[in-house]
């Protein structure tokens, strides 16, 4: 949001109200329930004991959780490191107009519209050594490839699946950002004899900042709560190699029905994401302002 010369108008609240009501119903109410559970021990539906911060302490000491968190951070960073540059490169190489542009756009975007469990299924079929194209040929090439048996292979397969699944989102956003640059900018650059790199660094990249910010935030948040795809593909295994935070939480909440610890864990999980995104959001906002100031100088 730009904060320049917008008039102050408290009546604008009425326009925001429907959204607040909607989101309050689907977010605040459930969140309060989670808070409620996190400080109680539910013995049976009508017997509960207030336990204060006990669950939080228990969750914080949980070694398994630390490992899951560490795996999660590694995975999310890997996702950003691969998908953002790849997405930008892809956007730069997509044809700008004509039927080719439409066709490429539709083909690239296709993987985004596939339900997440089907993405898991696709890679399951694709990667299996007996019936899958990828698995079969890796096996033929002499590699003992097995995403269900080898934890390194499982990790890389999940990463490849995520890259396959989500790079198009980055590409679409970056592509839209590129299209918004007026031709005059490129003409000015070519008069100045700017190199391709200079055009990219000083025209395309700054102009894509807004959409790239959306892309980084979305990819970070979503990879941080990845659940369905690894669940279908590897079930979190082998061992715990691909058990990320959501998977761990769901096992606790639904599988073992440990309401208290699961709720406490949920809140910590939520706060971690919130913290990361707050830092990221502000950092990118300030980056934007400083870039703008440079531009004026």
């Amino acid at each position, binding site marked *: 949001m730009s904060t320049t010369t917008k008039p102050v108008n408290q009546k604008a609240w009425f326009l925001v109200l429907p959204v607040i009501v909607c*989101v309050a*119903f689907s977010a605040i109410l459930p969140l309060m329930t989670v808070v409620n559970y996190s400080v109680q021990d539910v013995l049976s539906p009508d017997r509960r004991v207030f336990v204060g911060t006990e669950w939080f302490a228990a969750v914080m000491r949980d070694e398994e959780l630390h490992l899951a968190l560490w795996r999660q951070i590694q995975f999310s960073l890997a996702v950003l490191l691969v998908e953002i540059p790849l997405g930008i490169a892809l956007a730069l190489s997509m044809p700008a107009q004509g039927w080719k542009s439409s066709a490429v756009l539709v083909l690239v975007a296709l*993987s985004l519209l596939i*339900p997440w469990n089907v993405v898991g299924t696709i890679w399951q079929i694709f990667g299996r050594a*007996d019936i899958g194209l990828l698995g079969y040929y890796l096996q033929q090439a002499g590699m003992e490839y097995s995403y269900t048996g080898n934890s390194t292979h499982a990790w890389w397969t999940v990463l490849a699946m995520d890259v396959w699944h989500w790079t198009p989102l980055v590409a679409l956003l970056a592509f839209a950002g590129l299209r918004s640059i007026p031709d005059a900018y490129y003409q000015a650059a070519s008069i100045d004899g700017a190199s391709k790199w200079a055009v990219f660094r000083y025209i395309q990249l700054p102009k894509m900042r807004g959409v790239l910010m959306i892309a980084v935030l979305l990819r970070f948040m979503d990879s941080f709560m990845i*659940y369905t795809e690894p669940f279908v593909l590897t079930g979190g295994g082998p061992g715990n190699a691909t058990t990320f935070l959501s998977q761990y939480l769901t096992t606790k909440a639904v599988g073992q029905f440990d309401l208290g610890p699961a709720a406490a864990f949920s809140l910590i999980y939520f706060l971690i994401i919130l913290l990361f995104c707050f830092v990221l959001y502000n950092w990118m906002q300030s980056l934007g302002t400083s870039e703008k100031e440079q531009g004026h100088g």
Partner: protein
Amino acid sequence: MDNRRFKKRTLFLIAYLVFALLPIYWMVNMSFKTNEEILSSFTLWPAAFTWANYKTIFTDPSWYSGYINSLIYVGINTVISLTVALPAAYAFSRYRFLGDKHVFFWLLTNRMTPPAVFLLPFFQLYTTMGLMDTHIAVAMAHLLFNVPLAVWILEGFMSGIPREIDETAYIDGYSFPRFFFTIFLPLIKAGVGVAAFFCFMFSWVELLLARTLTSVNAKPIVATMTRTVSASGMDWATLAAAGVLTIVPGAIVIWFVRHYIAKGFAMGRV
């Protein structure tokens, strides 16, 4: 030099498209095979081409009703999301008001919340309200992440429309609703298209909430698929056919909004 560069880019694009389409091709390929062929021999294309898997899906109500259920709640969700998000996005893009930034960030935090966190509370909330296993329940649950996203996207587009347009319209005697629907909305229709696309997409692909909140009457196709996997052992061929069919509505939606995605942001951001 320019020509060589062009070629390099095209090569990269083609390489990516191969990477993007191979797994999908493999599933399509399997959906036309019989289970025997899948398991007994490794073939790059179907040797005994068959439509039987698709026939199974189109004639068995437990399969095709899944698609209908999914489309219903996705539709409800997209409509509600856009309806509430439009005025809010307008407020955020045009005015400053008490706590505006905080509300905006708070909305975004809902987009960041892992659905797993809300799984249990949702289950209890909707059970209490008697909404379990209805399309409304899933549509409401999906509002959680779609409304913030729609506000976010629309705000971006609206901020790209100069405020002078609003002011001129008011001077000309337009009332707010009339201005909004006859002048403003057509200007940001690309943004509405993009927002609708994202709402459709995230609701269509979500599994965890949709599966938990439904059992029979509103069971989405994604849940049908997971259950079939575990129930009938590994019916790869039917599973592949069902997977292919889940891609179809998405492909249709992309085709409709392709111009909006390409040109859309351009109109919004300049």
